[in-house]
């Protein structure tokens, strides 16, 4: 029987092969695309075989580093499978976009994207703290290389900022993991099951800070803007789409189940930070001068909102947060690809140099409009469904909290409308008028369209998604919810 | 008798030490140091350390001071630089710190009772006794000192022979560069350093 390990191994092996053998661009691109499509197919297979109420499935549990008690223990529940699926999809689209954009030294860039995918799979599937750490830290390596080699003009500073932030967080987490693993009763044991409830406040916060940086949660979001601005579009898509979800996912699937008491005790803190971050990011997105800036701050807002949903420690909050993670991954990845496409065509992502692009470009207009409307959670969209659940959860815990975050949705409308009209509407800028960019088509469209279609599909029947993850999400928060007496 | 010798010798020692420190001309300072060494040798004789006293005279006055005088002669009038022209509070602090150390030591010395002085036989302080100690208990220290001395000699040769021998008097040097020129050069290099630093931080700030 095929397990999750296979899913992790395939892109990893492909990455190594691509890295070592200097394929030509086309060959490397199609090979990478083929691999990622195969992975996507595998994931779909897993989704069909998945039993929503059966807990963790498709597991492997073998000894890995015996003296330390580290085991290769991977398995998925509904939440992790959802994240794996969205990772596979976004990676495929990012590869497609990279192939279209014709990067130099492409075989290496494809290899690194696949490597990121493998590490992300490990993060989402790991049931052993050490393996989780390997994935959580390891995914940064290809991402940073992608950022620093294929990024924009200030890529080095951006990379330094990312390193400064994440190194701080993950070092704390490493200490916490070592503490939990080495103090396990009966010899070193890094299995997550063995760590449940054994942590103290310091260990809890060491994890929380690492996850908050990766998410990014409100006061630790400083690395986001430079990184998202400087990364090449496909890397920005992966970074904002799924790499940041690793942080939020870890809150839900690692922090809350492992530290039920602390999660309950400090839930107010994360709810407060999530609320502030939601409003903060929304307000700041409203003032950014460029397409990427708006998406970056909207990501900060949305990720803070997701963390808020997780720490509601309720069914609605957890399911809504999971759903929102998937939705936001799709939306922000697609938005970055669209903005990146614009940059390749117009040479600038700044609003002052865009505008009026809806004329004669129906495909671009439709795609951007659908994405923009999804991003501002127009009722009926899947993003609306997930935000509705989180807000309902917030309202159930405190009515005023629900009211505040609901008002935040108005801010989302403000900045997304500004994004839409600055790109599509009003007069054409001089630059866009002179360059007269073509409509979105073929290669780039093929990279973006799957994300849009999945979003539309999820909008038609969000329950198809929520029914599959509801039980898993509930299981993850149930211990902490029990602490709260809920 | 001893007490008279002690006071005369120590008075000479202190006076000559002050002369060493205060004299503008290094040549005079060196001569004052000779006097100081001699007075100390006398004091050591009072302490029945005959060998050390002799070594003091022979090694210091005989060898080290000669080297000093050679260098002073080599350097000539350029070695004559008056007392420090520094900020008054630094001078005050220096003197204060030094005097504080003196007072503290004296307080300790006279405040603590050292107890009875050990009685010694005539052998004490003789070359034989010292030599025996040097080659038995303190052999390692002895050898280390000799190695250090050797290395110092090599270093002296290296320092003394490198560079371009230019014979310029202090006045000439001052005329060539001038105090203000030195100051200006210092300013320039500092400004360049600052500029370099600002440009690096500025870039990363962007």
């Amino acid at each position: 029987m095929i397990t999750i390990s296979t899913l992790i191994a395939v892109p990893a092996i492909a990455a190594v092969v691509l890295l070592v053998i200097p394929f030509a661009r086309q060959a490397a691109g199609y090979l990478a695309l083929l691999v990622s499509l195969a992975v996507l197919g595998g994931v779909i297979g897993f989704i069909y075989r998945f039993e929503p109420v059966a807990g963790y499935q498709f597991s492997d549990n073998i000894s890995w580093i015996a003296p330390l008690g580290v085991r290769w223990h991977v398995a998925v529940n509904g939440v992790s499978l959802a994240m794996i699926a969205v990772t596979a999809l976004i990676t495929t689209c990012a590869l497609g976009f990279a192939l279209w954009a014709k990067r130099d030294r492409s075989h290496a860039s494809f290899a690194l994207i696949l490597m990121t995918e493998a590490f992300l799979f490990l993060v989402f599937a790991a049931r052993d703290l050490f393996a989780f750490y390997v994935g959580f830290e390891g995914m940064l390596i290809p991402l940073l290389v992608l950022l620093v080699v294929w990024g924009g003009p200030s890529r080095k500073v951006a990379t330094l900022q990312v390193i400064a932030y994440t190194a701080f967080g993950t070092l704390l987490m490493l200490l916490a993991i070592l503490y939990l693993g080495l103090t396990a009763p009966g010899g070193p044991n890094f299995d997550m099951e063995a760590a449940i409830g054994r942590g103290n406040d310091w260990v809890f916060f060491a994890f929380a800070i690492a996850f908050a940086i990766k998410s990014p949660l409100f006061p630790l979001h400083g690395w986001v803007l430079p990184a998202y601005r400087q990364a090449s579009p496909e890397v920005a898509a992966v970074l904002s789409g799924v790499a940041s979800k690793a942080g939020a996912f870890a809150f839900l699937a690692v922090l809350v189940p492992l530290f039920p008491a602390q999660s309950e005790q400090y839930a107010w803190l994360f709810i407060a930070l999530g609320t502030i971050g939601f409003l903060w990011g929304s307000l700041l997105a409203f003032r950014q001068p460029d397409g990427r800036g708006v998406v970056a701050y909207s990501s900060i807002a949305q990720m803070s909102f997701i963390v808020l949903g997780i720490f509601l420690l309720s069914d609605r909050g957890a399911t809504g947060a999971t759903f929102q993670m998937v939705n936001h991954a799709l939306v922000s990845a697609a938005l970055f690809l669209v903005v990146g496409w614009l940059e390749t065509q117009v040479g600038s992502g700044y609003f002052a140099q865009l505008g009026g692009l809806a004329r004669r470009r129906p495909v671009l207009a439709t795609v951007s409009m659908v994405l923009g409307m999804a991003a501002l959670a127009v009722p009926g969209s899947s993003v609306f469904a997930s935000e509705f659940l989180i807000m309902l959860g917030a309202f159930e815990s405190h009515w005023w909290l629900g009211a505040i975050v609901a008002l935040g949705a108005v801010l989302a409308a403000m900045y997304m409308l500004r994004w839409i009209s600055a790109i599509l509407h009003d007069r054409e800028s001089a630059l866009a008028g002179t360059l007269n960019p073509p409509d979105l088509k073929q290669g780039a469209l093929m990279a973006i369209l799957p994300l849009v279609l999945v979003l539309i599909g999820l909008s038609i029947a969000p329950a198809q998604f929520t029914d599959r993850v509801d039980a898993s999400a509930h299981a993850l928060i149930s211990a902490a919810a029990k602490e709260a007496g809920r | 008798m001893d007490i008279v010798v002690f006071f005369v010798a120590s008075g000479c020692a202190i006076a000559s030490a002050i002369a060493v420190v205060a004299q503008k001309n290094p040549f005079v300072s060196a001569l004052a140091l000779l006097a100081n060494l001699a007075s100390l040798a006398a004091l050591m004789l009072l302490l029945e350390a005959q060998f050390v006293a002799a070594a003091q005279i022979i090694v210091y006055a005989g060898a080290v001071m000669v080297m000093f005088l050679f260098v002073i002669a080599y350097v000539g009038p350029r070695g004559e630089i008056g007392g420090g022209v520094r900020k008054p509070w630094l001078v005050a602090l220096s003197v204060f710190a030094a005097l504080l150390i003196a007072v503290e030591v004296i307080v300790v010395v006279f405040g603590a009772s050292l107890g009875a002085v050990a009685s010694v036989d005539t052998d004490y302080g003789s070359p034989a006794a010292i030599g025996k100690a040097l080659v038995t208990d303190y052999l390692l220290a002895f050898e280390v000192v000799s190695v250090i001395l050797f290395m110092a000699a090599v270093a002296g040769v290296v320092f003394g022979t490198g560079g371009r021998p230019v014979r310029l008097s202090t006045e000439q040097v001052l005329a060539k560069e001038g105090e203000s020129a030195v100051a200006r050069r210092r300013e320039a290099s500092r400004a360049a350093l600052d500029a370099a630093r600002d440009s690096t931080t500025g870039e990363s700030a962007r």
Partner: protein
Amino acid sequence: MTELVWITLALPLVGVALLALFGNNLPARGAGLFASLIMLAAFVTAAVALILLANRPEDQRQVTETAWTWLSAGDFRVGFDIWFDELTALMLVIVTGVGFLIHVFSIGYMKGDLQERRFFAYMNMFVFSMLVLVVSGNLVQLLIGWGLVGLSSYLLIGFWHHKTSAVKAAKKAFIINAIGDVGLAVGIFLLFVDLGTVSYSGVFASADTLSETQASIACLLLLVGALAKSAQIPLHTWLPDAMEGPTPVSALIHAATMVTAGVYLIARMNPLFFYAPKVLDLIVIIGVIGLLMAGAIAIVQTDIKRIIAFSTMSQIAYMFVGVGLSAYWAGIFHLFTHAFFKALLFMGAGLVIHALNGEQDTRNMGGLRKLMPKTYFCFLIGGLALTGIFPFSGGFSKDAILSAGLHVDSTIGWIAYGGGLVGALMTGIYTFRLIFLVFHRRLSPYAEKVAPPLIKHHGEGPRSMLWPVYILALGAAFLGLLQIPGLTHVMSSWLEPISPNGMIEATAGQEWLTTLIGSLVGVVGIIIAAHLYLHESDAPDRIRLGRGRLIARALERRCYWDDLYEWMFERPTQWTASFLNRDVDATAFRWLPTDGIGTITAFFGRSVVVLQNGIVRSYALVFAVGIAGFLLYLLVRGT
């Protein structure tokens, strides 16, 4: 029967999909024709469904059906439902019927625009959204329809997106409607928390378990949504700006259907509002203030579409008064007749604008009666219906609302009655001011230059534009006969079952009395308008610049609502956001944790670098001081 409803719902969606995917393969004309045929089919199915429903016995006229579960989490489940009863059926027919006529009208109106396919796709999408809204069987789906009509409205207001003013108006409409959506959403949260359900049947069944406070708060929140969507005070400022959209859009969305959704919501949720009598009173008061204010503002406007827009706001305020008085059938009746005569007026205005090559300023019109007699005739019918002159449709429906106030016979009832009559006077004034300015008087120089050649070339408009106007004119003239006081009761008896707690219905005597007074007041208004505007005179300007100048200026600035919001919300938000972005976020969160740490360290390094001055003697001094200090420490410590 439910199959027909599903088909009605699906048809416009199919239209959108086909137009979006294959629109480019259609000829420009074909898109309009296709969309209109879709609408015709939808109208037919809706009408058949209505007839089938009417043939059922009265106690079986409420059908619900769930297609699939839309969203679930824990014990929260909502389906994609239909809830088909008398009110839904009526709304379906209004939306598809008026929608069909306006689609046909648009074929002519939008001819020559390069983006007709996009226009018709948006129009079909709007109809779909509106149908989702009215057929919904639960509050979440209502909210979805609520949001989707807002989206369609945004797209259509900003249809000419190269115009900055249109884009701005579209954004404004969307954001204010988003505020309304939030109010509605929070109301839904509250109902779910209190009642554990969001379906209509569940809410209605357990509404009596709510305390009055709970019911009032929930109703207030729903009301926020209704106010935003229906452009009522204080969330009305988007509607006049929304006239930036093409005229058929104004007719369909901003007159006939979408803006009346608030009335529909209150009528639909009446079993809940029954438990919040204070909120109902508030609705009446908001309605009265709104109808007076909008009517007064309409008197001073110069843009033909804005005058009609303020009139719309005023008429919806009447509907609010009606539902606020628990005369739900009267509110819906007015909604029904209003859909006809207001669409008629908008389309008449559209004909005028079309004939004047896009001109909308009434000062550039005048004397069009002779050039466009058919339009004038239809417009006059619409104007009389709007003014509420017996026996035109608007008169019956408006008087039904006012007489309900008389029937209630409380302070609120009298406020409604008095306010409504004053409003009727204003309605007469502004409606006929508009008619006189546009159709009477002398031809303005502009109109004289532009209109005759255009009209000579293709008449008052293509047949596709004229026929819908004729049909609407028929409706505007005669639909009131459905409910002649004391004689016919089609409306009130049809809508009776939607309110389990009973409705207010005035006696025939009260209604006739109101009809008499209302018509008289309307005629007085017409006379005043005729006195001031029938012929060119400086009388209006004398009032405007003379004694009434303060009021006139306030009205021309639309009572300062826009300025108020700009200074209260818009600018502070922008300032705060700019401040946070430029000064706080950039320093505290982007600079401080990375470069900031380096810079601060370097700063401290540079401040202690003084010690490292390179002078060896200084080091010796520090050394000496250290030794002295250490010895002192040892001495003082003893030992």
